[in-house]
């Protein structure tokens, strides 16, 4: 059995959600590694768009550490700006969008604005804000969220909805005219989640080696449903790890 880090498992698991030839919208952080790894393995014909405005047929040749890092634009096919790549979301061209956040609820709504009640200004703890996550989740055909998991982060209801999942349940996105399909998959630090076609509620689909369903349920604030077909996530092979590590030799992202 290969020895791997959690970040490596998450990156490789996320990459499996990308099909060859798809348009993939990436922000910075792990998604950059996911995209680079997908290019290097099963999705060489992927089209990569970045929030900073690069459109690429190839992985960035060097590590990009910000959305508008020169490395993300080095050897790009087009170096536009934020308006141009995010417009592709609105045109419905983006197949998969990767987002993150600080809190997620059972309908896949995400909070990246702050903790507490916004109208009680004295006690609201501001985070950075939406960035492009809201736009990606509104209009991307499929949305993949990468989330740290504990009971304060997997909540019954987000304290502030920055980014729409299925909002209050089935049909709500459609009522508001959202063109994207909504959240499709959540890759957390403990397992992988999908959404029920009918109820739109998030359920556990895979748990990572070393985790248990009980432990995962204890780190989720709502009564988490579990797929009858729940399984352990396939661990990365030695070959997969070799390819991934070569993309981040100093462990900048992977640790």
């Amino acid at each position: 059995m290969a020895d791997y880090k959690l970040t490596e498992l998450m990156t490789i698991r996320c990459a499996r959600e990308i099909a060859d030839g798809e348009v993939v919208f990436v922000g910075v952080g792990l998604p950059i590694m996911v995209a680079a790894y997908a290019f290097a393995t099963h999705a060489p014909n992927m089209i990569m768009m970045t929030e900073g405005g690069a459109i690429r047929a190839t992985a960035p040749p060097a590590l990009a550490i910000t959305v508008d890092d020169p490395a993300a634009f080095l050897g790009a096919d087009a170096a536009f700006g934020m308006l141009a790549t995010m417009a592709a979301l609105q045109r419905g061209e983006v197949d998969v969008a990767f987002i993150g956040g600080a809190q997620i609820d059972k309908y896949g709504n995400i909070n990246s604005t702050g903790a507490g009640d916004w109208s009680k200004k004295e006690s609201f703890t501001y985070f950075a804000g939406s960035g492009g996550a809201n736009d990606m989740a509104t209009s991307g055909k499929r949305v993949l969220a990468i989330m740290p998991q504990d009971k304060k982060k997997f909540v019954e209801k987000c304290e502030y909805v920055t980014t729409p999942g299925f909002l209050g349940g089935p049909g709500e996105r459609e009522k508001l005219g959202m063109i994207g399909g909504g959240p499709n998959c959540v890759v957390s630090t403990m397992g992988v989640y999908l959404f029920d076609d009918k109820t739109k509620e998030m359920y556990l689909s895979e748990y990572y080696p070393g985790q248990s369903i009980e432990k995962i349920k204890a780190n989720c604030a709502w009564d988490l449903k579990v797929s009858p077909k729940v399984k352990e996530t396939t661990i990365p092979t030695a070959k997969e790890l070799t390819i991934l590590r070569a993309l981040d030799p100093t462990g900048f992202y992977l640790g």
Partner: protein
Amino acid sequence: MADIDKRMTLKDAVAKFIHDGDVVYYGGFQIHVPMALTHEIIRQKKRNLTTIESSTDVGGLDIMVGAGCVSEIHTAWIMNWYVKAPYAIRRAFNEGKLKRYDISNFGATSAMMAGFLGIPFIPIRGNIGTDMLKYNPMDLKVIEDPFGTGKITVVRAWRADVAIIHAQKADRLGNVVSYGTRGVTDEFGAMGTKRGVIVTTEEIVEPEAVRSDPDRTIVPYYKTLAVVHCPYGAHPSACRGYYGLDIRFSQYQGRYERYADLLPAFLDEWVYGCKDQAAYIEKYKSKFGQEGLDRLKPKLGFKPKMDVDYGYHDPTCWKGVPMYTDDRLKAYEDAIAAKKGGK
């Protein structure tokens, strides 16, 4: 052609063109953050500024809020990524000293696009269904599409009084040259301004050089108020082709941002204690060594491999050239002329 030299010192540019109460477009994102201008605004104790931008990193806006210069921000994303929080902004909001209006990146970019276009608002797809819509009615509304497609979010146009930006090159007239990322949103934020643009630049180039490659101009001279020659003017953010992001300094600054008691000491040493950006860089070298600056040197040698010639065609070559024709065309035209003549 009026050859108006707009070069001036950082101090004069801010004193002359930024007034208390102004709406300021805050340039850059994670690179090209106008840090030297940020420091000068703090030094001159400007007050009650409102800022607009889409996203901004390395804590530039955080220290400007922490220093008491800003009373209102409109933003999609603000923090110092290298400490993972917007500490001074968080405190100012809690203390009721700062109004904050949240919107998504595309919402903010579109707001500036609407300003750029000179229209009052623009429809966008995002923000609907969220708490941003609920808590930011100043920038966001939902209307029925008058053409019948259903509900749509609209965002108010953002037009700043003045824009502060950093770019690789500019000429003395105020033509601003930025390349590699098209400045993310700088061209829209700058062009939408009511009064104009203050630019700090790594290099002053001749107008003839800019005019030999005008595709790279993001702000034309007539929109520019002041050009400040200011090497390292975006530090600790990056400037493409000149220096990379100073992660260690961003973290260092961020640790000061974190504590209300500590931030004034940072401002005393690095802002009030330095008369300009050159003094700030000297301080940097004395504290963290020349090797700190050397570490920021980018890998170069990525010049375009495609030979571009902006050639043009001289239409005077048509002088004296008879009309092209053939028998078919001539017969048809003659028949029509005969018909007209017969009536």
